[in-house]
């Protein structure tokens, strides 16, 4: 489904991502883990076109999408959420998701209809499924942090992506919120037959839902495989010593 091979990116001599290869199969839930500064976000930005790679390729269903602009990559079926929450803060929750539907259905160039009368049912249904129905009239910028993360997920889902990339979906959440978010992600991935790739620093989260894990360290992938394989890997243990990996066993 998603195939990354030999991807590299340097920033002024610093190799943030170095020769990274990674495959995510259809409907697989995969995670990229690694300490801060390992290159996780850079890797995501390379996949979604926010950064141009120095070398390597990204393929979606066999089609080369390397270096395409973000809006094209989105239209090809990759959705993403951002690490720093990214919503339309002056619009209401409903208007946020409605806008995403308008664009997905190619209505963005329409000058003559009224935006607020379009895709109301779809928007309401999606808000209900991500648990934001009660807040639909709230101005998005005033939502709680956890709710903003949910809304961001809603924005990504409105364009019916085949692959969903989530950059630290539970960052900054309380234990309860984290737990709820993980259940939500699992349910939505199953309902929509999504291929999911996410980065995460919370090991508990990763091992509870990921079917495949890649460990990024200083821009290199040092281990890749099923959770139990990665957990047993001596190199991973060395890098993660004292980072909580042993506690999850």
């Amino acid at each position, binding site marked *: 489904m998603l195939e990354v091979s030999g991807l590299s990116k340097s920033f002024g001599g610093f190799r943030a991502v170095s020769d990274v290869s990674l495959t995510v199969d259809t409907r697989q839930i995969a995670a990229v883990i690694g300490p801060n500064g390992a290159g996780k976000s850079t890797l995501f930005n390379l996949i979604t076109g926010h950064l141009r790679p120095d070398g390597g390729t990204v393929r979606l269903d066999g089609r080369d999408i390397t270096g395409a602009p973000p*809006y094209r990559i*989105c239209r090809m079926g990759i959705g993403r959420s951002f690490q720093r929450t990214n919503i339309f*803060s002056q619009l209401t929750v409903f208007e*946020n998701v409605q*806008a*995403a539907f308008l664009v997905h259905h190619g209505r*963005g160039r329409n*000058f003559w*209809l009224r935006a607020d009368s379009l895709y109301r049912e779809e928007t309401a249904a999606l808000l209900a499924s991500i648990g934001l129905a009660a807040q639909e009239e709230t101005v998005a910028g005033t939502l709680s942090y956890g709710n903003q993360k949910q809304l961001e997920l809603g*924005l990504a889902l409105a364009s019916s992506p085949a692959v969903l990339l989530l950059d630290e979906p539970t960052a900054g959440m309380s234990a309860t919120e984290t737990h709820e978010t993980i259940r939500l992600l699992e349910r939505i991935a199953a309902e929509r037959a999504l291929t999911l790739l996410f980065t995460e620093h919370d090991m508990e989260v990763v091992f509870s839902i990921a079917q495949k894990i890649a460990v990024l360290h200083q821009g290199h992938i040092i281990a890749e495989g099923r959770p139990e394989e990665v957990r047993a890997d001596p190199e991973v243990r060395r890098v993660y010593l004292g980072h909580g990996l042993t506690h999850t066993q």
Partner: protein
Amino acid sequence: MTVAASTPMLRRHALAATALRDRILSGGVPWTLVIFLLMATVPWLGSRYDTFLASQITIDALFAVSLNLLLGTTGLVSFGHVAYFGVGAYVCGILMKTYGVPFSLAFPASGLGAALFALVSGYFCVRLIKLYFAMLTLAFSQIIWAIAYKWNAVTGGDQGLPEIPYPHLDWMSSIPGCADLSIGARFYLLTLVLVAVSLAIVHHIIRSPFGRVLTTIRDNPERAAFLGINVRLYQLASFVIAGGFAGLAGALYGIFSRGVFADYVFWSKSAEILIMTILGGAGYFWGPPVGAAALVWLNQVITDYTQYWSFVLGAILLVLLFGFPGGIVGGLDMLWQRLKRLRNA
């Protein structure tokens, strides 16, 4: 299409659900109509000078609303919006004076001309962001000013284009009550109608799916791109539409002030229109027209008392920016919300 076809009921529902505040501040039938009718009575109830002021307010309102399509709706700060106003004024003036083209053709041509120039300059501007975007718009407007000032054969150079003819408005005599109106008053009424139609179109564009996309770009261009939006293309489209309407305002202004001069295109006019927009409230559709009315009126009142108009204007802006960041309309909105809460409590 299926959704659009099944919407008459949904749309009624949506209309009913629109908040009272929305109805009063933006496009509701009663208030807009009342203000339009009040404005239309000025030639009969007011003096010639009142008609003069009302003309200026009406034209500036359209100019400021076109700027606010960039500022308030798309999130683009232009320091050079006067360029498109100027192109419209010159196109209309040159066509009518030099070539004797009737107003009914020269007016739309001035909007198209300004939109065309906005397409060319905007192509470069939207490649830059924030301050760099603003500086490039300023640069283009200075180019237009230089051309207006130096190209004697076409623009009249520093002499400008005086004595642009009024459109033929003799037909208005057949309208009851209009027979005795001066040509200036007649042109004011025509201006009022043309501006009202233009404002209705801009208002509709802002409410359309296209307008919603512009607001997502204003709030968060990075996220907008990852909804599948080609951000630059939409910014350019907004720039072209804004330029076109500024051009229409310019065409009206050239005829109203009986001539087009290079001064009209000087960058300080861009600043003035930005001030109007912010004074009225960039977050509201009716902010810029209110700002235009306030600024034109204040200018008259204050210059009667003191020559330090800029000083007073600066002081007013200072108070407003700190006290009412939403401008005059934003302040009124806040007050209204508070009253409503008091009544409900």
